[in-house]
């Protein structure tokens, strides 16, 4: 099967730029992906041709913009196979999506939240708020050295006090995918709802929230080739209906009186104020663009890149790889003995190669791996095998300079 990566690259204007006089090799896609022309054009066309506030106006532009905004919601709904667009809440990102659930959950002192040590801080800190503010107890699911969750341990962690299981669908550090459908099955067998953090998974895999039977599914737009400032909280209708509003303001109300207020139905209940209209349109365009691609071919292309980099790194003495689970995608976390990952990242940057280095907003996982930080190279559809070679050469030079 051939995947025309050159044709794909040509659609991403930024990939033609240079860094320090060298062609940019962008391997920080798990942090944020670059944007195809289709997304850039959709947003600027909206601003140039048809823009107004949504849901309120009775004029032509307001109607057109409202239709575009709601069409983006319908695209998201179709993209994740949600039962209907009104189960899709637009948020400002994956973080806000999780915060809406955490803040709205009816939690009493002693109630328990099940997380894994592999979560991004966005799926940790909102639950810490519940621990601090309401006396909730956080129960932590461990992972093995390669980042595989222990499903039998999950069952043991769930108690009658468990209010929710909140787990990642794919680790942002290790690229390891979690067995989401089984997680949901185990939790549902105990009557506990599940929130999945899909910020990484939704980029690399077809996600079907109904097949997963997830109660909540959160993801962000900017890792999905869309703009920043837009994310999604999918929730089962009855789950969303059970949550109180997150922020107060325009649009999320039904009736406002001086001593009484009633709120709008989901999804609008959670979209206070003027929403990120252009960003939603951009996300809709990103999804349309992605759906026009052969996603299976992209996934195998990314898998080839990931495997090529991992086998090249395995050849080297003094390089540690993290997360060698067979069920992983597009992310390579590593460390070079005797060097801090920041040293490695900075010297790679000087050679035009962009990687991330740090704790990746996953300090509990760093502790589990016994490190303070790692370097991380992460792939998108537009990366190439040549770029893996450039990365390896740049890494050799970095090791030489640091050696």
């Amino acid at each position, binding site marked *: 099967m051939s995947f025309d990566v050159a044709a794909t690259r040509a659609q991403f204007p930024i990939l033609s730029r240079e860094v*320090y006089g060298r062609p940019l090799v962008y391997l920080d896609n798990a942090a944020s992906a670059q944007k195809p022309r289709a997304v850039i054009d959709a947003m600027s066309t909206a601003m140039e041709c048809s823009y107004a506030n949504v849901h309120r106006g009775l004029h032509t532009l307001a109607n057109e913009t409202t239709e575009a905004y709601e069409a983006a919601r319908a695209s998201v709904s179709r993209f994740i196979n949600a039962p209907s667009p009104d189960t899709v809440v637009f948020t400002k990102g994956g973080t806000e999506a999780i915060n809406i659930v955490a803040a709205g959950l009816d939690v009493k002192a002693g109630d328990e939240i099940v997380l894994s040590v592999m979560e991004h801080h966005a799926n940790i800190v909102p639950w810490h708020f519940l621990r601090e503010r309401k006396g909730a107890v956080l129960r932590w699911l461990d992972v093995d050295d390669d980042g595989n969750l222990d499903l039998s341990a999950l069952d043991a962690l769930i108690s009658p006090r468990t209010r929710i299981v909140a787990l990642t669908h794919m680790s942002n550090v290790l690229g390891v995918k979690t067995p989401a459908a089984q997680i949901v099955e185990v939790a549902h067998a105990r009557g506990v709802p599940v929130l999945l953090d899909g910020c990484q998974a939704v980029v690399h895999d077809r996600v079907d929230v109904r097949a997963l039977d997830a109660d909540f599914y959160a993801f962000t737009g900017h890792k999905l080739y869309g703009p920043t400032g837009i994310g999604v909280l999918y929730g089962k209708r009855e789950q969303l209906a059970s949550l109180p509003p997150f922020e107060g303001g325009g649009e999320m109300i039904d009736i406002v009186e001086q001593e009484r207020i009633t709120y709008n139905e989901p999804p609008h209940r959670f979209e206070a104020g003027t929403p990120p209209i252009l960003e939603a349109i951009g996300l809709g365009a990103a999804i349309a663009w992605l759906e026009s691609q052969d996603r299976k071919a992209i996934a195998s292309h990314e898998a080839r890149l990931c495997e090529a980099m991992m086998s090249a790194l395995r050849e080297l003495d003094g390089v540690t790889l993290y997360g060698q689970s067979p069920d992983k995608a597009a992310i390579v976390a590593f460390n070079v003995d005797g060097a*801090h990952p*920041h*040293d490695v990242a900075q*010297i790679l940057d*000087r050679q035009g190669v962009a990687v991330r280095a740090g704790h990746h907003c996953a300090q509990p996982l760093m502790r589990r791996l016994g490190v*303070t930080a790692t370097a991380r190279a992460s792939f998108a559809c537009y990366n190439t095998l040549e770029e893996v070679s450039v990365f390896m050469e740049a890494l050799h030079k970095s090791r030489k*300079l640091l050696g």
Partner: protein
Amino acid sequence: MSTIDEAIDEIATDFALLPDWEERISYVIELGRALAPLPEAERNEANRVRGCASQVWLVSERRADAPDRLFFRGESDAHLVRGEIALLLRLFSDRTPAEIISADPRAVFERLGLKDALTAQRSNGLFAMMNRIQAEARAAA
């Protein structure tokens, strides 16, 4: 002893003499290797510089033989950051608080001539370290 301005010029001249970015980065790494490590006890929370993605500790102290001056020692777990600390100590250690406060952190990085070797990202902590040094100086002034 030279002023901060003169010290910046001296370092900039050193860098300018090096033929390419690799030599300049090697030089920064060498400076870091030559930095005396901080004792374990001083690598504590109070001395940790927030805002650095790698771990950075800075100790400021007064010495009886030069009571009007501030002295700094520091360390990081990253080689390049250790090198940057070494540079900052050359600029700011053994100075009066007034001298330290008068320096413009952005201008310091610009003038050092490191831009072709290192991206001054917020997370590498150079500015956080300079802010810390100046905060200590303001507290001591």
